[in-house]
């Protein structure tokens, strides 16, 4: 099994990244603060005003290193991409299946099912762990609602119907999400999903984590030679990474929402860790962003047993495993794409 490589996050404003031999050198105020050999890195993510030498970009592209530029708030700006990698036959098969409504609906159904199962587990877990502290009845109702959604997905429904069920399940799930937040602070109440910009603290956290997830999933897909822009559930739109968003659905609840919830519930992120702008948009402070990144990196190092491979691997590698399974499905080595369902 491949090793989980590290990701370098640069959040310090005014930093400059350059290539130094086989290393990435991070310079701040004309002083090299860190020098990391590129072979230990799987990706580099730059936030805000961080610049970078063209040689490093070329080097990263050549080594297949994911290299993304994000705004300070985590909105995706650009990425560096080298020559298209991987097998043309695999990509062609991906396009063929994405063009076929039946094949798309099939994989979309399994991805959405995994998403719903993972979301449902979060609700069940909250009921089990904090049953005494929280009002259980809406949660109980949601658990059975999600189960009902799952059952409807068992039938061979069309892509549009499947997406309808997904929307309904997401609505229901985010409808009870507020009950999962144990913090009494009114600032952490969750009313509904809002993005671009996020209008409250919880949404701000969620959006930021989802951006990180998208970066990792996209890199994983491109490592096995898939085209991250051509999805099955998410249809083509210029500049959108459809397939990355598809595969990410399986991880939203299991990685993203759980991380956000534990940061809030364990008090690692406090209400003062956010700034409210005049427009009503909510933004994280630099320190909070670092806390989050550390927690996210730690989460990726947690070991789990992969449900399909039955192998112990770190969470961060699961993105790569799913990308590999997606490629296997396209090559015809497995009958269906087995989505990730967490424990």
């Amino acid at each position: 099994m491949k090793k989980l490589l590290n990701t370098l996050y640069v959040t310090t404003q005014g930093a400059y990244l350059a290539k130094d031999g086989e290393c990435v050198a991070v310079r701040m105020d004309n002083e090299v603060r860190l020098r990391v050999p590129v072979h230990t890195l799987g990706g580099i993510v730059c936030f805000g005003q961080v610049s970078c030498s063209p040689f490093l970009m070329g080097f990263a592209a050549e080594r297949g290193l994911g290299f993304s530029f994000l705004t300070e708030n985590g909105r995706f700006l650009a990425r560096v991409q080298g020559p298209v990698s991987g097998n043309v036959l695999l990509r062609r098969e991906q396009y063929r299946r994405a063009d076929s409504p039946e094949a798309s609906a099939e994989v979309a159904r399994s991805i959405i099912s995994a998403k719903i199962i993972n979301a449902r587990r979060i609700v069940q877990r909250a009921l089990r762990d904090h049953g005494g502290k929280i009002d259980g009845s809406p949660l109980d109702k949601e658990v059975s609602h999600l189960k009902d959604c799952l059952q409807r997905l068992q039938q061979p429904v069309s892509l549009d119907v499947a997406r309808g069920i997904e929307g309904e399940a997401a609505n229901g799930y985010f409808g009870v999400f507020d009950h999962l937040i144990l913090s009494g602070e009114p600032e952490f109440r969750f009313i509904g999903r809002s993005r671009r910009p996020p209008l409250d603290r919880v949404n701000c956290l969620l959006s930021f984590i989802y951006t990180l997830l998208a970066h990792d999933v996209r890199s994983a897909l491109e490592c096995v030679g898939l085209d991250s822009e051509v999805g099955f559930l998410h249809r083509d739109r210029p500049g959108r990474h459809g397939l990355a968003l598809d595969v990410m659905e399986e991880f939203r609840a299991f990685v993203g929402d759980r991380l956000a919830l534990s940061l809030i519930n364990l008090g690692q992120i406090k209400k003062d860790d956010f700034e409210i702008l005049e427009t009503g948009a909510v933004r994280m402070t630099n320190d909070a962003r670092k806390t989050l990144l550390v927690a996210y990196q730690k989460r990726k190092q947690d070991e789990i047993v992969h449900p399909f491979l039955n192998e112990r691997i770190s969470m961060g590698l699961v993105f790569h495993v799913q990308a590999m399974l997606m490629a296997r499905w396209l090559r015809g080595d497995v009958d269906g794409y087995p989505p990730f369902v967490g424990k």
Partner: protein
Amino acid sequence: MLVLISYDVSFEDPGGERRLRRIAKACQDYGQRVQYSVFECVVDPAQWARLKHRLLTEMDERKDSLRFYYLGANWKRKIEHVGAKPEYDPEGPLIL
């Protein structure tokens, strides 16, 4: 696995400085400098073969000495650092 590399390069002949520079450069490409002539490199077996070959071609076996300490994959429990020159953990979160 983690390999600790330390070296002594002789300055007796004029080529010494060049060898020192090139050995340090090779180590730096694969790991971090923890003291002047001590490097810690986290490498897989293939990378280690490449690095070792590179070091052995750079050095002059009659004059220089190189020492490799193999600390394995569970190296975190085997290293303790005291004092100045804080290093980074190559497998921990890298956030700047």
